[in-house]
Structures are given as structure tokens and as C-alpha cells.
């Protein structure tokens, strides 16, 4: 593979432009746009009464703010002299607007999983040890251990950290992505547009307080090191080497012709140590990220662009050691890698997600379309850059590497989504390469086109990202209901929720067994009586009884996603109310809690 980098340069960036009048004017407009968008977001009431999610209820002020930011960014990139402070301000404004909208709307963390992660941190802090028998999280405990340290050291509540995590994580991701993109191009416009497209196109919604968000930052940061201090450059094209010395000899000749870009061996060793350090932290923190890391490193090494092949071996060895030690309990019952056939993979990642209400189906279709559109633009971008003489294969290799994981890991049906995330820095870089001209200023028609593309992606991302807002943005009544659940539950009681979108498990993670009706009644989805019998049997077998919580988010999730017919859910609520074994112990406008009393009280 021949890799000749001819990235265009921008000499104008070094001229200070912060004092120019337009910088101040744009900064003022950006502040106004963010203010307008935030104010509009605070007007959104929960529950979100729309199957399209937030996109259906956000006031016009939000869209005006988002539109203004996009226009300002494109005009700022057109400027003869780019202003770093202005571009940074615009980027931060976009992140606050796009990722802060639900924060300003509700003031509470979104999605069940973020709440669950608080419970894991609490369990680790309270117990002061890692018990791998609890569940899979405790077999990859690194992130939670570090977070427990941060929560206890700072004194900031874990819930506050979870609330702001999306903004914090995306800012970290952008900083790491900036390092990576700068390894590919010296064109400042290309850099800033890539970062803008990254922030706009991150609809995947994995930036909440989670090990994968943490692992993704470390992953991109590691590639920041690899693509700068540990990068290599073959001095011979592979085709030329093969024609000179035959296939085997040519490959050997090409391989040995590689030169390190960093000439100082001590610096390379230090960079390698840093990469290993980050790699090991990834290995102990998340189940999936190390595999993507290893595949990406391997492809980069095979492309002749990583100077130290040992890095992939060391990270691979660390992964094997961890799987055999720290994660061995989990792996005893769950294979970490499992190969599905193509039909299973498609069904798990796409087919099974296209069910439910019309609005939900439309949102899923928009997610798929947006993802395909961005990938198509990225591939066209690579072709355009290649034709312009920028024959750097590294962005393409790193863009493609996560796709190799799709057939080998179904990962609960989320692997395509994870692929979209891991390829996003490179997708954004290649898309920016498609949209920008090779040299000269961005023309007015092209600027208009870039604005249109940015607006389409903005609209698509708000729709795709917040499409589940009806059930993943919880109401104060639902959160109060969960508090009551824990306050009223006897120790060791079985806790049952209607379905997965429930703000629970944020405390007493280990003390209670948690289950959902959707999981318990998986085999009798249309039979409320059979489902009730299953729950009743489970509750009465437990000496401490059970508490069953049904909330609005459960009902909406079941209706929108078509998991369990809503009629069954409503029927269940009525049957609990009429059951002689269960009694209603709490209700508010969004929550019902029934109790099957402990054995001693029956």
C-alpha cells in the first residue's frame, strides 16, 4: 500500500485574528444563539408526548439557535484568516446546544443505563472491593473503580456527574479527534469542519456516563499518540518494491523501508509506554473497545503506518491476561466473541429494531439513513482526496477497521451502532474532505451546500439521538416513584419493573435482585394472565416478597417499540390491582407500586 501524504497547508492560521471585528460579532451571535436554544430547551416539558421524541416538541427557538450556529461556523471557515478562539467557541456552543438540550429540559440524567451505572459506582464505593460474581460490569470494573475514586475524592454527587457527562465526554472526544485529524492534514479548515461534522453527526448516543464513552476517549487518544509519535512512513511504494524483488522479497523490502516519523528513539519508547498504559486501562474497563483497538492497530501496522508492531502484541497480551483473570468469572458462562451468520447479525442490529409505533419506526429509519448517508459521503470523500493526490490510507483503514467487528460480535444487537461511533472521527474527516475545495477559499455556492449538509445532519441527529425521549427522559414523578420503591422495599425483596426504561438500580445495586416484566414474560408476551402467574410465583417464592413498579416510561416504551403489547401491560396493571396477593402501596401520576408482602406478613 502506497501512502503519500500531500496535505494542503494553511499559512493564514498563524496570523492572530482574535482582534478582528467579525470575531467579536460572531462570538456575540454565538452566545445569543446558544442562549436562545437553551431557553427553548428549558421550555420542553416532561413527559415528552411525541413518538418522534424531542424533535417533535423542541420550540422553534432551539432550531433558530442551531441553524445560526451552523451558518456562523461555515462563514467562519470561509474567512481568509481563521480564528482559533472563535472556532473553539462555536464548537463548544454547538456541543452545549446539541448535547445539553435534554439536560436543560429535565435536569436529570437520561436513560436507564446511566442510572444503573451510578448504582455500580455506589456498590464499589460501599464494598471497597470488586466482586466479579455480581455481573459482567464487575468483570471489567476499571471505569467504575476510577469513577468511584473521582466521586469520593471530589465530593460531587454521581448524579451530577451523570447529568453533565454527555457534554464533558463529547468535548474530550473532540479534543482527541482534533489530534487525530491533525495527523492527517495541515489544512485548518479541514480540521475545524471535521470537528464540526463529528459533533453534528454523533447521533449514536453513547456519550452518557459509561465505560464505552470513557473507552472511546482513550481509544481515540491512543490513536493520537500512534498517529504522531509512533507513526511510520514506507519510503518505497509496495507495488514498486514487489516489481523490484518479487512478491515475498518485495513485501520484505517495503516493510524494511519504513521509517519512523519521530526520529528520537527515547521519545518513541516514552510514547509506546503511554500507548500501553492507555491500552491496558481500556482492556480492564470495557468489553468491546479492546477488540476494536486491536483490529485497528493491526490494520494500521499491516498498512506499514505504525512503527511499533509490538504495541498490538502487548495490548493483545494484556487482553488475553485480563480475560483469563479479571473477566474469567463472566467468561465462564458468556463467550466474549461469538460469530453470528449474516442473517442473525442483520436481524440483531437492524431488523429487530424496526418494530413498534409509526413514529418509532420513522425514527429508526432516519437513524439508518443518516448512518448510511454519512458513510457514503465519507467514502466519496476518500475518493476525492485520493484523486487530489492525498493518498494517505490511514483514515480509510481506521474508518473500515470497526466494520470488521460486525460479523464477530452481535453485542446485544448494538454492534452496528458501535461501529458508527468508532468510525466517526474518520467519517467526519473524510466527509470534510469531500465538502471542502482542494485550495482557495470556499465559494459561496459551496458554502451554501455545506450549510445545507450541516443542517440536514443536525436535524437527523436531533431526531435519531433523542428519538426515544418519550421513554428515556424521565419525569420527576417517575424518579420519585423509584425513590419510594427503595424506601419501602424490605431487605432482599425482589424488585420488578414493567420494562427496561426505569430510573432505578442507582442505589442498593447488590442488595436487591432486579427484574423486569418484559424479561420475565418473554415467552408469554400476549397473555396477561400467564404473565401475572409467572410474576406471582416468583414473588411468593421469595421469603421477603416482591415490589412491582409500573411507570409511564415502561408503558410508552412497550407501546412504541412493540415489545409487549400495551394492552397486556394495561391488563397487568388492572390484574395487580384486583389480585388478593398484591396490594397497592404507592401511586403518583406516573407510577404504581404493588407489593407482594414478605412471608411473615402473609
Amino acid at each position: 500500500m502506497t501512502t503519500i501524504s500531500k496535505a494542503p497547508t494553511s499559512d493564514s492560521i498563524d496570523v492572530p485574528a482574535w482582534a478582528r471585528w467579525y470575531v467579536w460579532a460572531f462570538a456575540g451571535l454565538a452566545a445569543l444563539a446558544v442562549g436562545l436554544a437553551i431557553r427553548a430547551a428549558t421550555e420542553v416539558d416532561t413527559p415528552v408526548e411525541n413518538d418522534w421524541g424531542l424533535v417533535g416538541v423542541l420550540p422553534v427557538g432551539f432550531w433558530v439557535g442551531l441553524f445560526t450556529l451552523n451558518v456562523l461556523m461555515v462563514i467562519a471557515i470561509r474567512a481568509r484568516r481563521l480564528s482559533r478562539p472563535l472556532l473553539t467557541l462555536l464548537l463548544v456552543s454547538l456541543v452545549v446546544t446539541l448535547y445539553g438540550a435534554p439536560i436543560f429540559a429535565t435536569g436529570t440524567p437520561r436513560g436507564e443505563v446511566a442510572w444503573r451505572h451510578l448504582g455500580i459506582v455506589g456498590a464499589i464505593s460501599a464494598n471497597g472491593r470488586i466482586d466479579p460474581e455480581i455481573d459482567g460490569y464487575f468483570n471489567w470494573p476499571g471505569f467504575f473503580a476510577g469513577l468511584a475514586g473521582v466521586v469520593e475524592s471530589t465530593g460531587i454527587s454521581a448524579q451530577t456527574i451523570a447529568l453533565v457527562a454527555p457534554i464533558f465526554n463529547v468535548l474530550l472526544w473532540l479534543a482527541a479527534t482534533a489530534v487525530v485529524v491533525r495527523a492527517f492534514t495541515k489544512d485548518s479548515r479541514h480540521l475545524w469542519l471535521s470537528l464540526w461534522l463529528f459533533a453534528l453527526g454523533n447521533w449514536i448516543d453513547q456519550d452518557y456516563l459509561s465505560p464505552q464513552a470513557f473507552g472511546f476517549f482513550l481509544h481515540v487518544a491512543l490513536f493520537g499518540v500512534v498517529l504522531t509519535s509512533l507513526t511510520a512512513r514506507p519510503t518505497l511504494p509496495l507495488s514498486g518494491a514487489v516489481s523490484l524483488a518479487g512478491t515475498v522479497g518485495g513485501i520484505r523490502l517495503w516493510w524494511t523501508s519504513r521509517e519512523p516519523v519521530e526520529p528520537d528513539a527515547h521519545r518513541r519508547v516514552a510514547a509506546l509506554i503511554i500507548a500501553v498504559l492507555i491500552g491496558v486501562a481500556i482492556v480492564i474497563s470495557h468489553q468491546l473497545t479492546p477488540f476494536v483497538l486491536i483490529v485497528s492497530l493491526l490494520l494500521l501496522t499491516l498498512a506499514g503506518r505504525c512503527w511499533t508492531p509490538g504495541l498490538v502484541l502487548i495490548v493483545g497480551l494484556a487482553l488475553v491476561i485480563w480475560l483469563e483473570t479479571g473477566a474469567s468469572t463472566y467468561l465462564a458462562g458468556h463467550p466474549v466473541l461469538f460469530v453470528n451468520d449474516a442473517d442473525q447479525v442483520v436481524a440483531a442490529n437492524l431488523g429487530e429494531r424496526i418494530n413498534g409505533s409509526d413514529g418509532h419506526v420513522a425514527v429508526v429509519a432516519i437513524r439508518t439513513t443518516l448512518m448510511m448517508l454519512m458513510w457514503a459521503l465519507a467514502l466519496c470523500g476518500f475518493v476525492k482526496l485520493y484523486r487530489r493526490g492525498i493518498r494517505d490510507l490511514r483514515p480509510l483503514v481506521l474508518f473500515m477497521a470497526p466494520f470488521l467487528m460486525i460479523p464477530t460480535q452481535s453485542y446485544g444487537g448494538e454492534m452496528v451502532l458501535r461501529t458508527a461511533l468508532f468510525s466517526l472521527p474518520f467519517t467526519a474527516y473524510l466527509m470534510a474532505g469531500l465538502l471542502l475545495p482542494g485550495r482557495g477559499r470556499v465559494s459561496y455556492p459551496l458554502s451554501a451546500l455545506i450549510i445545507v449538509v450541516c443542517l440536514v445532519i443536525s436535524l437527523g441527529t436531533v431526531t435519531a439521538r433523542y428519538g426515544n425521549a418519550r421513554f428515556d427522559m424521565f419525569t420527576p414523578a417517575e424518579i420519585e416513584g423509584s425513590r419510594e420503591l427503595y424506601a419501602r422495599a424490605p431487605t432482599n425483596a425482589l424488585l420488578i419493573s414493567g420494562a427496561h426504561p426505569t430510573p432505578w438500580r442507582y442505589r442498593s445495586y447488590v442488595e436487591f435482585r432486579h427484574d423486569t416484566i418484559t424479561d420475565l414474560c418473554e415467552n408469554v408476551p400476549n397473555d396477561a394472565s400467564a404473565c401475572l402467574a409467572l410474576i406471582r410465583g416468583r414473588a411468593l417464592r421469595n421469603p421477603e416478597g416482591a415490589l412491582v413498579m409500573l411507570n409511564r416510561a415502561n408503558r410508552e416504551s412497550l407501546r412504541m417499540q412493540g415489545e409487549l403489547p400495551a394492552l397486556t401491560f394495561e391488563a397487568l396493571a388492572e390484574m395487580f390491582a384486583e389480585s388478593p396477593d398484591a396490594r397497592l402501596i404507592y401511586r403518583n401520576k406516573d407510577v404504581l407500586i404493588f407489593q407482594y408482602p414478605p412471608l411473615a406478613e402473609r
Partner: protein
Amino acid sequence: MFRSIAARVALADVDPPTRAVVAVAVGCAGVQALQPAPPLSIVTSVVLLLLAPGFVVARSAHLDDPLLLLVVTVAASMALDVLMATLLLYLRVWSVPAFALSMGLVTVVAAIPAALGAQRGGAT
């Protein structure tokens, strides 16, 4: 020889920014071990958990680009937090003071290669 060892322990050959960060980290570890209340705990934790250890590690690679230095500083600090917290939990010696002191120690230890490099190469 004794003087040489003492000089290494005192990180006398390390460049001034690294030495200053190590000193601040040790100070923050000491304060953090006393479990102060916010906002002091937030300031000392940010220095000790997000900046200092990673900065010292990043300096050892002589990263010239300020953005790369910043990203590696934060990433390496977080990586060290995770590794140290996990180790303490597996050893069942987890506590906030132990975590703070161990991160201070990690920062000092991370500066030693820089000190050795400086003695070998004459500058860091």
C-alpha cells in the same frame, strides 16, 4: 553516589514545569488525604486525578504539540486513575486517602524516568 541518589529522589534534574507539577501533586495528595470538603476537594482532585500524573508522563515523551500534550495528559491521568483504583480495590485497601496518596506517589514515580533521562542526556 549518595548525593546522586538524593538528587534523583529530589528530581533535581527534572525540568522546572515537571518538577512544579510533581510538587503540586504531592501537595494535593496530602490535602486530599485529609478529605477536605468542596470546593477545595474539587480543585485538588482535578489536579491530582485529571492533570498531574498524565502531564508528567506526557512530558517524558517530549510531546511538542500543546493539544497533543493536553489530550495525553488527561488520557494518561484517567488511565492511571483507573489502574490505581482497580488495584486498590482488588487489594481491598480502598479508601479516599489511600487513593489520593497512591496517585501522588504515581506522579512522583512517573517523573523518575525523566530525571534519569535528564542525567543521561543532559536535558529534558
